[in-house]
């Protein structure tokens, strides 16, 4: 593996973990009765930017290296389902994350500092953050399974 592919893979993993952490932090922060809108705007921005950059770096590695070098090794090994199920699901549901995170970011930027959000809006946004975090955790764990299968 070249240094560039290695750097892209590491960036994909680290940025993905940062994104999931930021989504979780935003979710937990917004659950509080007294929350800091400034902090929620910052963490939701970190989540959105991290997912986009993780998508780009992971996409570069996946499209140009994984398919020809890693995938055949996994399919020929003892755990072919690591690719057939986990990578296939991971690579597609990951695409949801940047869009969900951008919507959450815009939602926090639309809120007023001096006014509490409408009850239904708050609940929907909390669910959106929870679903984003859950999908992010699934994607992260799938990455762990694939890393184990390739060894």
């Amino acid at each position: 593996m070249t240094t560039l592919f290695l750097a892209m893979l590491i960036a994909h993993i680290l940025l993905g973990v940062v994104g999931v952490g930021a989504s979780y932090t935003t979710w937990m922060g917004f659950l509080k009765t007294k929350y800091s809108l400034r902090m929620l705007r910052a963490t939701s921005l970190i989540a959105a930017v991290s997912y986009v950059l993780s998508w780009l770096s992971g996409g570069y590695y996946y499209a140009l290296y994984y398919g020809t070098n890693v995938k055949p090794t996994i399919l020929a090994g003892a755990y072919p389902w690591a690719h057939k199920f986990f990578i296939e699901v991971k690579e597609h549901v990951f695409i949801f994350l940047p869009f969900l995170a951008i919507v959450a970011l815009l939602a926090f930027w639309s809120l007023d500092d001096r006014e509490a959000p409408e009850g239904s809006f708050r609940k929907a946004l909390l669910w959106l953050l929870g679903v984003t975090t859950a999908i992010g955790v699934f994607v992260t764990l799938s990455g762990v399974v694939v890393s184990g299968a390739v060894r």
Partner: protein
Amino acid sequence: MDQRNTWTNSLVIASAFAAMASVIWVAASTIVGELHAPFKNFLKATFTHHWIGKGVIAVACFLFFTLVGTLLARKYPSWRSSVPLWILVFISVVGFFAIGGFYFYEDFLK
């Protein structure tokens, strides 16, 4: 009195609908691509890789519907942003289980 929705509220409504379009596209194109090889081959031939094609079209969908939706939502001050957020949550969960369920069936049950 201003009879328009605010720009920020319009943007949230539009981006939620745009994200729904992108999520539906990703889920549908993934399943259809596996069941109908010419569609997957078309994406591959056009974008060098089927996954890149799905991503590029998802981004295009998101940008297009956000732009058009924001201008449209501005005209309707009664539109609330909570409704599209709830629908987006539902669509995302359905999309996740549709993709996961499809591959689970294909790989473990078929």
